[in-house]
């Protein structure tokens, strides 16, 4: 992927995440102020199309942003090898995307295993 495309995707994913992160931070404070429980989390997310879209978008944007960020850090501090950098980029993206979407599925459809 070209550097300019990585740069644009990094900034675009950041912009997408700004409102999501603000809402997530507010929710962290709200949900934990009187103790966090699985029941409280799942009562909000279970079967909810809104939270599925919210967290699904969040996961995709975070996977893109983190993958490009770790590639940049690796390029500056670890290696300039293009193959290794591609491995960091696509490896991070796939791990975060798959685990993240699985987590979204789990909280929207709990007990579906």
């Amino acid at each position, binding site marked *: 992927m070209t550097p300019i495309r990585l740069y644009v995707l990094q900034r675009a994913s950041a912009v997408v995440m700004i409102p999501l992160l603000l809402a997530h931070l507010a929710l962290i404070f709200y949900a934990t102020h009187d103790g966090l429980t*699985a029941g409280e989390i799942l009562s909000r997310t279970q079967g909810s199309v809104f939270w599925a879209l919210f967290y699904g978008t969040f996961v995709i944007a975070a996977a893109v942003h983190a993958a490009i960020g770790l590639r940049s850090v690796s390029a500056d501090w670890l290696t300039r090898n293009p193959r290794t950098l591609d491995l960091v980029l696509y490896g991070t993206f796939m791990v975060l995307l798959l685990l993240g979407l699985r*987590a979204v599925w789990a909280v929207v459809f709990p007990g579906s295993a």
Partner: protein
Amino acid sequence: MATIESNARANSQVRSLTPGPRTPVANSGYRRNVLWHAAFIHRMSGVLLAIFLPMHFLVLGLAIEGEAALGGFIAWTELPVVKLAESVLVFLLAVHLLGGLRVLAIENAQVASGHRRLAIIIMALSATAAVLFLLMIWL
């Protein structure tokens, strides 16, 4: 990020051009620069969040086996050391978010001055959020 680092580099060159011997200490003077620290903290908070995310997703993924599986793990978060770790996460999230907004502002708006003050305000706000969060879950 690139802009912040180039600013920090530019500042470091101004320092290294000042009279005096070119010792390693003089050449690494930029490391005492607030903006260098802001860029470093932004980068490290991003790396730490990227390391934390897979664990966060694995824990939430426990719900796929039902509420009890997730609940069993969440009970563990009552440990003081976990509460401290959660507060650190709030700090990392806040400082990366606000630091990212600063980067976007620098890159997309003509912000000529006040960079150091803004970087310090971001650190202070993030630390305040983390301390408030810790007090809230501790008390």
